[in-house]
């Protein structure tokens, strides 16, 4: 059983930028513990002599490339249309320097 305690759950939540309440912390402690115990199956793996080949497909013989030419991009007003807060062509965010 891979043990993961509540302090560890809270540490990971900070890294993931997630606020969790106490109930979520307890649930995730148990559920992540169960999943991590299962994935410990990977500890049986033979160690490969060479670095793992992890590309999903073999390198294509004709690499995908296209001419490096300027092309139109999304207009600013379009890009800001979905923003929760925007002003005068900019995204507005909460103050950062005080942190």
């Amino acid at each position: 059983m891979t043990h993961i305690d509540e302090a560890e759950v809270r540490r990971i939540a900070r890294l993931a930028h997630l606020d969790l309440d106490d109930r979520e912390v307890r649930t995730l402690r148990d559920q992540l513990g169960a999943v991590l115990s299962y994935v410990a199956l990977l500890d049986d793996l033979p160690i490969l002599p060479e670095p793992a080949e992890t590309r999903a497909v073999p390198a294509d013989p004709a690499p995908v490339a296209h001419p490096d030419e300027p092309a139109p991009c999304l207009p600013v007003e379009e890009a800001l249309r979905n923003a929760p807060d925007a002003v005068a062509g900019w995204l507005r965010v909460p103050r950062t320097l005080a942190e």
Partner: protein
Amino acid sequence: VSEAVVALETMALPARWSAETLRHDWGEGRLSAADLAAECRRRIARGDGGLRAFVRVDPRLEERAAAVDSRRARGEPTPLGGLPVAVKDNLLTAGLETSCGSRILDGFVPPVDATAVARLREAGAVVLGKTNLDEFAMGSSTEHSTHGATRNPWDPERVPGGSSGGSAVAVAAAMAPLALGSDTGGSIRQPAAFCGVVGVKPTWGRVSRSGLVAFASSLDQVGPLAREVASAARLLQAIAGPDPLDATAAARPVEDYVAACGRGVAGMRVGLPREYFSPPLDPAIAERVRAAAAALEREGARVEEVSLPHTRYAVPAYYLVATAEASSNLARYDGVRYGIRRGGGGLRETYRRTRAAGFGPEVKRRLMLGTFALSAGYHERFYGRAQQARALVRRDFVESFRGGVELLLTPVSPVGPFRLGEKLEDPLAMYLTDVYTVTANLAGVPALAVPLGLDGHGLPIGGQLIGPHFGEATLFRAAAVLERAFPTPAPPCVEAGARRA
């Protein structure tokens, strides 16, 4: 006689329709895309209340369909001839809200189409609406959605599979002739199997991922769902190919998949991987897949047992690689550029509150797992080993195909459609249902789910065909043979409509 049946008779469209026939009739001028679109809207209004396959129908549907009719009148090429296509709600549709089944994207209206969606429109199809999914495509049951759970038309107390459950139900319940889904670990194939339709996960790189909301970029692929193998082939043909907006979309030419459907399997070497036929596989599913092997043999294929020895490592490797990539991809949902914002305090607090309020429990669980797997002190033991396992799973496939087998035949899922809520509280049990599908994503190879009739409870059973990289045409050859050998009815709700009409 209900109003619904009157509508069907007025349209002269069968309740259990065929996308191939509809397309043909449209080409001959016997049917208009505008009428077909309106008929789909009626069927959704009538039938989707209890199933919840759709999260929204395009309000401009009939207008867009009429524009395709005008293209026919002008003689423009329209290979998808006026067909309405249901689109999974993690593919961007310009001007039509895209939610990914998440509260965090509430109100998000994409400024552009995904490439796959743009290609549908170019080919003369009409985007019918957006279908429900597990939030950000993370799930195997379409229960994890802010829009509520989608139900299986074969038994509304059961799940339709996921995460493309809405797309599979839309096609199975004859509300849409065709649909698009996405598949990161089985999200097209497993719902296709649970709902009795055809679903294809193409080779990684066969279809552009531009405008597909990223979950795990090295695993995600867009693909078709359809009632017929030939329609799935036609839809894939329309969306496949290189794309300047996605440098990982392969430059290889797209084969004629529709023609492949008629080519048969004479002389084809088919492998049955022994690791896919052991417990916890439901014996009824095992028996049916072996019957499918016998059907291919009768058509001239040679079937042999093969071994993919690293299969047992696939689920753990998948759940580490996919969640690690998700933890990075979903960092963009921070309440700044789109979606909801929960403010108060500084910027970091806004991030944390927004994400806490916007993500559901399954997404949070996976972000936590992925963040853990990548964090200092754990990276090598978890993510590093998962990558190594992935390489071994991939090597198993490459060696099998190098050994002369042209495709593999397996079950799609070890179990049939399970009951709603049955696995919600046990994430590991849910993850283990992906045991036969995640392998193709890890290896990047194409795979297809094809219906193999019904089980003793009247629920669909699916068979999976897995091919070598860019071997989609081979999959379609075998799938068309299995489709003829295992005619699968439509769900009872559709068959009842067919009898009344």
